């Protein structure tokens, strides 16, 4: 799995960090998403998919086959 984030779309809602804190963080100064792990471990895939599904800004893209 490969994850990308679109900082311009991100509205800083923090959903992704609440769901997968090992994969996402937020910048201290404005709350915009920071991708910590572009190729997360299999154990985290469920949480990452959920984060992408519920991100209110559709700022997270999951590429499954890589």
């Amino acid at each position: 799995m490969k994850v990308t984030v679109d900082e311009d779309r991100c509205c800083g809602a923090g959903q992704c960090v609440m769901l997968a804190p090992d994969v996402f963080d937020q910048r201290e100064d404005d709350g915009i998403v920071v991708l910590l792990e572009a190729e997360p471990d299999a154990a985290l895939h469920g949480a990452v998919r959920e984060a992408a599904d519920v991100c209110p800004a559709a700022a997270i893209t999951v590429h499954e086959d890589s």
Partner: protein
Amino acid sequence: MTLSDPGTGELHYPLPAPDPLDPPKEWAELRDRCPVARVTLPSGDHAQLLTRYDDVKQVLSDPRFPRVGGGQGARISDSGGVFDSDMASVLPQSGPAHQQWRRLVMRWFTARRMTALRPRIEAMADSLIDDMVAQGAPADLKAALGFPLPVWVICTMLGVPDSDRDKFSYWSDTLLNLTRYTREEIVAAQTEFLGYMQVHVRAKREQPGDDLLSELTTEPMADGTLLTDAQLVATGQGLLVAGHETTANMISKMVAMLLADRGRWEQLLADPSLVRTAVEEALRFDANPGIGMPRYIAEDVELTSGALPAGTTVMCSMGAANRDAGAFAGAEEMDLTRSPNPHLSFGSGPHSCLGQALARTELQVTLEVLLRRLPGLDLAVPVDELQRVEGLAVGGLRELPVRW
């Protein structure tokens, strides 16, 4: 009722809802047969009501469509209140300027800040429950816990002293309850609130504390400028208006939904790790979230359910969208394990709720503390005796009588 026919009957909005925890019957019918429905607002103006998930999500997340107001789009009601006032018109509402303001405030609402705030919220919830228990059952859980908790939290963030929390509760209530107060009461409350906040902001400039307003007095936005006093006042005001009544009502509605079917409460007692998904499901399942979000359609747009011409005011019913079977399997069932749960209760896209991490934290903490402290919690009246609040912007229950 039957869905009104353009030209003959008028569909008055908000729709009447017969039962406290169930949605208006029209939601399902509208989603199926009339996903873009012409409605008459309390002001007499008209809007197009959207009830399908895809349509609501598309409009809410499109940055071209601002909230109504400032003479643009239909008026919601005649009595003023948040939807019609120039509550915070000194703050930019959309576009790059809105984004700048939002990013500045956003840092106070990150998931990490919320994790840090969590123990304080928990201590507040515990102390409110201590007081409720000391008074003895039955108690009104809304007055004892749901209403004070969020205002305490916001006052803490704004550096407002504990002794002024009750005043804040009242102001916040008048600002959002379009129908419960008279125009004079609303104007008087807004004036008082504004006066208080102006003094408060000036005090924070002179003697900064460890709070959001103090930090904002010195923190430049991306373009290097500082927020003015008026903008700081509006920020504080906006946070209270946005974060108090919404969360207060959601706490009561969530607990009511969980107790209305005892099996749900027992499921959580047996497995408290379900608290997170249970909170999301309560947000989705909320049958009384208020009227929804109005949007001004600034340019022609094509939705799955039809075309909307520029100049239309739409009312996005997130509550109806959240029960769209096209988006949620078993949409009419409350499933405490549902995941993922991409409900629209916080909106979507660039305007979506800035306080959602805080709201989620408050709801999760409330539920955890209640399960731990009062496992025997139960409704003290039959479900159908619960009464809805008439406020438009945020729906809720008048009281939540409980025993334990």
